[in-house]
């Protein structure tokens, strides 16, 4: 019985290994040379990078860092020869159809997004001029204040250009709320030609018990900037305080708000018992007095 089972298990393992290792992932000829309808430019590559970060990075890792998950087979790095050996049509087919450990994205990503993803991968192809360049971060400065009445954050941004700080226009500014376990992003706003921006705090932001929110204003990662922290801005909704814990209607409570009947019962019972004990001790003393009679 056991022997049979062992043979079966070995057979299944062997077959499934065949399935994984044995076959090359071939792309049907008609799909191989489909041309990419989306243009290879910065906007599309950037969009493709965002999609990659959300959907692919968890297995394939960061481009060029070779930090993919140790799966079998190992998901190839975006920069790797194995990845770049694919044609654009082949990449699109593989993303769409998936195989084995690689999921299909036909139902989760739109066709446009899948082509943008291909554009992102092609950024690292030797045939193309890379549009996505890792420039050293630019030094920048941020000023921000909060208008509590209108619930608006006003921002002014500058960046360093040839040793001088000039207005930073068209840069996305990230506004977040500081929470106990990290920041929660409230939204983004682009600075105008004067380097200024206004961000309206959404109505549903929850503050502390008094409605205070700690707002963090920052720039994207290609800027070197000290984030502005606006402490205790009264722009949020009041945090609801659970009534049961603060109220007086629970038994297990602190001495400050102990229920009177409980305290009286305790003190009454203990007092009565010790009064009786005291009375008995008094009787014992009486026995001593009676011995003189």
């Amino acid at each position: 019985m056991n022997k049979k089972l062992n043979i079966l298990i070995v057979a299944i393992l062997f077959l499934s290994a065949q399935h994984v290792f044995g076959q090359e992932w071939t792309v049907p000829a008609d799909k191989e040379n489909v041309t990419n309808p989306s243009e290879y430019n910065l906007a599309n590559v950037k969009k493709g990078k965002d999609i990659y970060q959300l959907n692919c990075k968890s297995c394939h890792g960061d481009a060029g860092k070779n930090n993919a998950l140790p799966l079998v087979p190992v998901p190839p790095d975006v920069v790797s020869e194995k990845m770049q050996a694919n044609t654009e049509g082949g990449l699109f087919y593989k993303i769409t159809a998936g195989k084995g450990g690689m999921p299909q994205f036909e139902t989760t990503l739109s066709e446009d997004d899948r082509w943008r993803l291909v554009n992102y991968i092609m950024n690292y192809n030797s045939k193309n001029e890379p549009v996505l360049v890792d420039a050293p971060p630019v030094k920048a400065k941020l000023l921000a204040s909060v208008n509590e009445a209108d619930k608006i954050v006003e921002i002014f941004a500058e960046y360093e250009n040839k040793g001088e700080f000039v207005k930073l226009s068209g840069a996305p500014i990230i506004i977040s709320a500081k929470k106990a376990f990290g920041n929660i992003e409230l939204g983004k706003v682009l600075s105008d030609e004067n380097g200024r921006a206004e961000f309206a705090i959404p109505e549903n932001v929850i503050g502390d018990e008094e409605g205070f929110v700690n707002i963090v204003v920052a720039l994207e990662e290609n800027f070197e900037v000290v984030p502005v922290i606006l402490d205790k801005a009264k722009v949020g909704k009041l945090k609801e305080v659970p009534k049961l814990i603060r109220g007086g209607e629970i038994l297990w409570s602190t001495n400050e708000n102990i229920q009177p009947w409980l305290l009286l019962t305790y003190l009454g019972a203990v007092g009565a018992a010790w009064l009786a004990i005291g009375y008995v001790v008094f009787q014992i003393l009486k026995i001593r007095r009676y011995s003189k009679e």
Partner: protein
Amino acid sequence: MKKIESAEESRKLLDKITFDLTRSIVKKDEMTRFWFFILIMFIGVGLWGWIIQIDKGLGVTGMRDYVSWGMYIANFVFFVAVSLIGFLLSSALHLLKIDWAKPVSRVAEQVAIAGVALAGLIIVMDMGRPDRFLNVFLHGRFASPIIWDVTVVTTYLVISVLLFYLPLIPDLALLRDRMGSEVPKWKMKIYTILALGWNGNAKQYKTVYHAMRILMLLIIPVGLSIHTVTSWLFAATLRSGWDTTILGPYFVAGAFVAGSAAVIILMYAYRIRYGLKDYFEDIHFDQMGKLLVFVSLVYLYFNINEFLVPGYKMKSAEGVHLTNLFSGSFSSMFWIVQIVGLVLPIILLLCKYFRKPLPIAIISVFVLVSAWFKRYLIVIPTMEHPFLPVQNVPENFQTYSPTSIEIMITLFSFFAALMIISVLAKLFPVITIWEYAEEKGIDKKYLSETPKN
């Protein structure tokens, strides 16, 4: 009750009773020394374990984040349980005017004092910082069952000591008057001081009766609450196995089982060791056996309620707990405890033969040992299934097994309890002499006579 008219006969009988019942005080042989040697040795080893624990912290025990109540708390519940017999035998049966219980009541009080004193001590030994013990009183919350428990344990200890002392006063006077060269001077000094100058006048007897009656009435609510409050320490939580409304009476019923067994064992030891065959008679063992059957049946009834009703429903968390008890890792302990500690004793003790001194003493040993493991089963399995997910912790956090330090300290508690009982037995008669003499028809006036020789 027949009255002995002849003065000669009364004096003769009183002399015999006094002689027999003070044998435990006078007797001094190799056996006594050996017994105290054993006690002191184990107490010393246990205290050494406690010193290690204080030095190194509670990490030397098997208790971790999830199982934070281990063998110490199980042991605490056991000792509280055992001590409860004092209230049943020396108060409830006394007030019901059940005569056979009278000679047994001092034994019961010995057990009660030893049990409740050790219960208090074990809690201190369970603390990581015993030097902060006073904070319980200074900063305690009145809404916390732990404060109720500390209060009620202290109160019960005081009442038990008083209930031991009050009927002892006339005996102390008797010892003061009759024991001369047989006992060392320091003992005589203790008798003289504690006898309060008793001379046996009517007013004194009246006061003793009056005070005893008050104490007996007082100990009923206090005794009931000591173990009910101990059960609330568990029942006031939401944990499966503890979250039940019958835990109070369940604990009280279980306590009577454990305590009766302890008293029977002690009675048998005294009967053999001090030759008290005529005092702890077969009828006392027979009656104690019937009492044990009765309280065991009550306990069995609560056990059925405690396990059948949740076992019928098998609510998810409760189901995990019960499966673990019925067929899981605790199943052998559970079934042995239920069968050897409860079902078999009931069946056996229904036969008259098994209520004879030796058989019932042996059965009682099994009942008492099972009672200890029963407390272990109440505390530890529930702690092992917290409602929290047990994750990202070392493997030894998930289950509990006592360490040698814990076993040493637990052994200390057993031997310390035996030490208290042994010292009480070496100092004071194990049966109330004056009550017993009165029962035999000897007039009170002969008690306060100083013998001529």
